[in-house]
């Protein structure tokens, strides 16, 4: 990733090839500190490494975007918007893995860890949406466009808002909130890859 960044003279975050790789690296980046919070470190690291490898494998199916960037993408707001989005996606992925571990091991600590990770991810994702809005306003003349991708971004944001509000109620604590945390990552994957595959949108990833 560093080599590609130097080669292209920019952060490699354009197109599914680069972003899948970036997502994979982000998952590992966040997994390392989270692992220190776990009693059995291998329990978390093993599925997380597999998830990362899966995304790297998936990235090989996409062509790298090697042409020069259009000037509208050469801005701090765009780069920060994408980087924060993928950091958030990585955290949501990590939260889903921890959720699955909770369903297997039933450790209360895993549920709390999942909540904390989702909270950080939600914060980054909200920041990404705001930064995207600022970029859109300077680049396209509007902070909001009615496209399926943007609608799904809001669906994803609302879904995690639902998770955070639901978890405030006692009934939702434990298995129900963990299930929501796992479902959230399915929505992440559809927002990230599914929308571009099945629906026309201004976003290409």
């Amino acid at each position, binding site marked *: 990733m560093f080599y590609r960044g130097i080669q292209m003279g920019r952060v490699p975050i354009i197109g599914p090839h680069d972003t899948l790789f970036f997502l994979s690296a982000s998952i590992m980046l966040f997994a390392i500190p989270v692992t220190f919070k776990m009693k059995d470190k291998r329990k978390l690291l093993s599925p997380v490494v597999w998830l990362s490898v899966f995304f790297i494998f998936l990235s090989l199916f996409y062509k790298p975007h090697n042409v020069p960037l259009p000037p509208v993408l050469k801005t701090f707001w765009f780069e920060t918007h994408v980087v924060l989005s993928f950091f958030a996606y990585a955290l949501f992925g990590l939260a889903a893995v921890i959720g699955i571990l909770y369903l297997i091991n039933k450790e209360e600590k895993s549920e709390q860890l999942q909540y904390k990770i989702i909270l950080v991810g939600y914060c980054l994702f909200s920041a990404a949406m705001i930064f995207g809005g*600022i970029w859109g306003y300077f680049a396209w003349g509007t902070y909001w466009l009615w496209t399926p991708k943007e609608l799904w971004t809001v669906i994803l944001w609302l879904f995690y808002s639902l998770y955070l509000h639901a978890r405030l109620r006692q009934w939702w604590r434990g298995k129900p909130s963990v299930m929501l945390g796992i479902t959230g990552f399915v929505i992440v994957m559809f927002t990230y890859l599914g929308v571009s595959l099945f629906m026309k949108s201004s976003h290409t990833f």
Partner: protein
Amino acid sequence: MKILKNILNFFLSLRLSIWLIFVLLSLLFYGSFVMPKEKEFQTLNTIPLFQWMNENNSGITWWLWAAIGILVLLTVNTLLCSIESVIKKRVSKHWILIISPQLIHVGFLFILFSHLLSSYGSFRGTAFVYEGSALQLPNGLTVVFAAINTDIDHSGFIKNWSADIKYFDERRQMTKDVISPNNPSFQDGFGIYIKTVRLEPVPAALIEVSREPGAFCALVGGVLFLAGMVTLLIFKMKKEDARI
């Protein structure tokens, strides 16, 4: 009095928030599949939302009307819950940390309000302009495109572009500016954007004129939301760590 109390209790409920978010999610989920299929949605980004909704058949816009209805209920729910929470927790020692969710809610409401403003009074128009040509803005000002500039690399690829513009009020020149990608020019609430250029047969630029009345409100909302989110994050992390 009892009816009023019942209405208040109905809105002062976290369960209601969860249900409203769930219904809103379902409506947007449905809409995301309808949007790419119906050709009417192609014009949705060119005119204000409310105008578009009035001009189009309710058979395809019903989910947007329903989503607005849910958002109105969610606004009332958010406002009342936030007021109640501030009143209850005003004597707490960690007041700033405890009201952080309310700061997030206020930010959210600002963003909703910004969308309301833009859905009512936004404007978008595009045109191809040539060097020396003029464009009249809806507020009566005239923009003259004095020069279209390009930065071409050794392979002939246009790396960047810009346009020198001058604003005229009737025949008097007011000010001049340079527009380039990500660097629009703003005058009296209108933004002038340069989208792309072509050099043949004569230099021309695709220009967009846009007005987003909710933009500033959205920025304020975004800042409040993030400020609240960061303080909430600190507070919740401490609280969860204490629980473990």
